[in-house]
């Protein structure tokens, strides 16, 4: 399975709630990177689940690279 190298890594821009709501209004894709067991009980509306440990070229192929992507986990810690 292909994996991401450090050259593929783009640092994400940190945002807060207000920016998230604005991006969501503009068609952003929201991605929860927690394990499926954490995603299933409750998640943000429309969020897809791409667990951090399973991130690779194949799993992220579902994302539309022409639209903003917002990732989130449980909290800031």
């Amino acid at each position, binding site marked *: 399975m292909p994996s991401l190298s450090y050259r593929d890594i783009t640092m994400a821009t*940190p945002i807060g*709630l207000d920016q998230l709501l604005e991006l969501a209004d503009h068609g952003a894709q929201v991605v929860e990177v927690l394990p499926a067991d954490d995603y299933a009980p409750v*998640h*943000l509306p429309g*969020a897809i689940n791409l667990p951090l440990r399973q991130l690779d070229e194949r799993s992220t192929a579902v994302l539309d690279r022409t639209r903003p992507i*917002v990732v989130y*986990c*449980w*909290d*800031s810690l």
Partner: protein
Amino acid sequence: MYDYVPGKVDWLAHNLEVEGERAGAPTLGRVMRHDVVRCAPTDPRTAVLESIKGSPYPFAVMTSADGTVLGRVPASALDPPSDEPVWDVAEPGPKTFRPHHAVENVARQLAEKDLRWAIATTPEGRLLGVASREDLERAAP
């Protein structure tokens, strides 16, 4: 790419819509009501007491201009009424809860502290609503 750094807990704590298997679980945010009297620190006690008497609650919540909870003002503290401001009879820094907490946990914490009312706020301390212990216990699974 963007990182919503405050994360899922921040979303939940703002009482925003969620999806998932437990999205309909009874939480403080689902039980709370929004009609509690709000007052500013400089509001005269007579006016606040009148508002409380016209509400289903025995208290008002004192907030700043942006809705941040500053204190709780029991009706009993406003008697006898006067035109003095409410700030010096308010109970400062009341215990508050986040709206995504399960009703049974909030009810238990209220019971442990012999409190009858839960005040729900955002993580920034802005007032969302209030719920009685009885309503929380009734909603518990």
